[in-house]
């Protein structure tokens, strides 16, 4: 591993010996990651490898038992999720995370509203938010939802909900995105559309994603970390990782029988 990688300027997110224990079971056990700025970094591994747990540690929805997380040279190990988001590190969710009773436009606006700072102004009319409508519509258009702006998010199809979620996330203009299985449960056409979207979004951002779909991982990611049983099994680009005998073993399960 790169010596002193945590402080290198091209590393945006780094973990050092990250571990979490649930009643004696170490779901994540000493994981050290280096995510380079401007890359698409994928986190893969067989079921139960600790991918989602690791992801929740990075997004602060879980607190690690051991280890540190550094984002842009700043220790964020003990920070709260909302505060991490304010630093430009924003996550998506595996299940489509929209606000079902708000319209698609309002969903995106909730994120755009963040630029006003906090919104405790309960005495002001929501008309002050209509200044954000134009940008919200532009973002919706970018994910192919221009015609659905006034529809409640609950009425959108699954693929469109995911697209809406991405538009909402992009509205925050985050420096780094953490995507939790962006393709989970999607049909073929949707997968291609979202993959293209992720690629275009990644041009000036860093992305770390957990993903099951290996063809997506192969075509999108610059760097892959393979987890197995809570530990880093292998790292490198797809060509390297896919040839690694330990990875093949972990996926096919040789030695388990």
């Amino acid at each position: 591993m790169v010596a002193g990688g945590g402080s290198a300027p091209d590393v945006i997110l780094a973990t050092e010996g990250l571990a979490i224990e649930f009643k004696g079971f170490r779901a994540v056990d000493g994981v050290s990651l280096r995510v380079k700025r401007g890359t698409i970094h994928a986190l893969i591994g067989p079921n139960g490898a600790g991918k989602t747990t690791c992801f929740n540690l990075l997004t602060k929805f879980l607190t690690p038992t051991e280890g540190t997380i550094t984002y842009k040279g700043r220790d964020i190990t003990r920070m709260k999720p909302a505060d991490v988001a304010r630093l430009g590190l924003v996550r998506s969710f595996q299940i489509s995370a929209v606000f079902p009773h708000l319209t698609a436009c309002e969903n995106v606006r909730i994120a755009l509203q963040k630029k006003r700072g906090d919104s405790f102004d309960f005495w002001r009319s929501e008309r002050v938010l209509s200044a954000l409508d134009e940008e919200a519509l532009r973002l919706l258009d970018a994910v192919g939802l221009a015609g659905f702006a006034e529809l409640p998010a609950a009425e959108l199809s699954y693929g469109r909900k995911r697209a809406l979620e991405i538009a909402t996330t992009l509205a925050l203009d985050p420096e780094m995105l953490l995507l939790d299985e962006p393709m989970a449960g999607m049909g073929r056409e949707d997968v291609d559309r979202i993959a293209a979207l992720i690629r275009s979004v990644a041009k000036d951002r860093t992305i770390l994603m957990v993903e099951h779909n290996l063809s997506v991982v192969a075509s999108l990611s610059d760097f892959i970390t393979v987890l197995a049983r809570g530990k880093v099994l292998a790292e490198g680009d797809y060509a390297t990782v896919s040839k690694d005998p330990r990875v093949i073993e972990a996926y096919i399960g040789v030695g388990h029988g």
Partner: protein
Amino acid sequence: MADGAVAASDVGATEFALRERRDTGALHRAIFIGLAGLLLVAPFLAYPVFLMKVLCFALFALAFNLLLGYGGLLSFGHAAYFGMASYVSAYTAKHWGMTPELAILLGVAVAALLGTAFGALAIRRQGIYFAMITLALAQMVYFFSLQTPRFTGGEDGIQAVPRGKLFGLLSLADDRILYYVVAAIFFGGLLLIYRIIHSPFGQVCKAIRDNEPRAISLGYRANQYKLAVFVLSASLAGLAGATKAIVFQLASLTDVHWTMSGEVVLMTLVGGMGTVFGPIAGALVIVAMQNYLAHLGAWVTIIQGVIFVVCVLVFREGIVGVIAKRVKQPL
């Protein structure tokens, strides 16, 4: 070519939806105007004291619905704010000789403080635990009221509270004059709640209600918003309770009892949770039942229970919720 056609129809759909949104605004404005007109003529059609009771409970239910319907938080202890404000306004009007508007304002201030303290404790938990904590804290307020007869009058309550003169000028002894003051307070409260729901703050509250982890992941500190909406709701419940004490010239243990917390849940559910106008309809139905069925004695409670069960089973959206579905507009 085909793409162009799809895009055009999509734009058409958006325009249609935008027009619908404007229609909703116009419809709400019409309802507000109609309601104002109704409030003006109502004392000539019905008994003012009954109307004032409806208005106080409607405001209480509106305040509760702000928290439940738009904050997604089920408080089972709203009697604490309603009742404590009622005691404070009755006590200060009677023993300190406060004018009614000051007595009511003091009641609201105490409800806001109580709401801040209790809210800060309760929002740390979710769902049923949140409800239980609010109930437990409200029970503390009840026992405090029971044990401090010097302040609350114990079992007797604070009786013969003077209605006094508004701003020291206008005597409120006449039911009809008092009615218009209460109607103004109610209408002001309704407008404020409407504004809160349709404010940037209200938008974030609705987002947190819909999906809290997602709102947090966008950088909103959900607990601060929950506390803010809790305090607003408690203060408005206090406004209702404090006004009620002046109207009935009485503050009693009934106001802080847990059944009062239950009643406001009932009114909100019957009227339509998460609708703007539902709680008003719910309060009207429940108060009217209590008044006009009073001669049936204990049967009132049983009828109320049956109505509650029917509501939950048959039309969960409540009266106004069902109407809103019919006219396909949020009400």
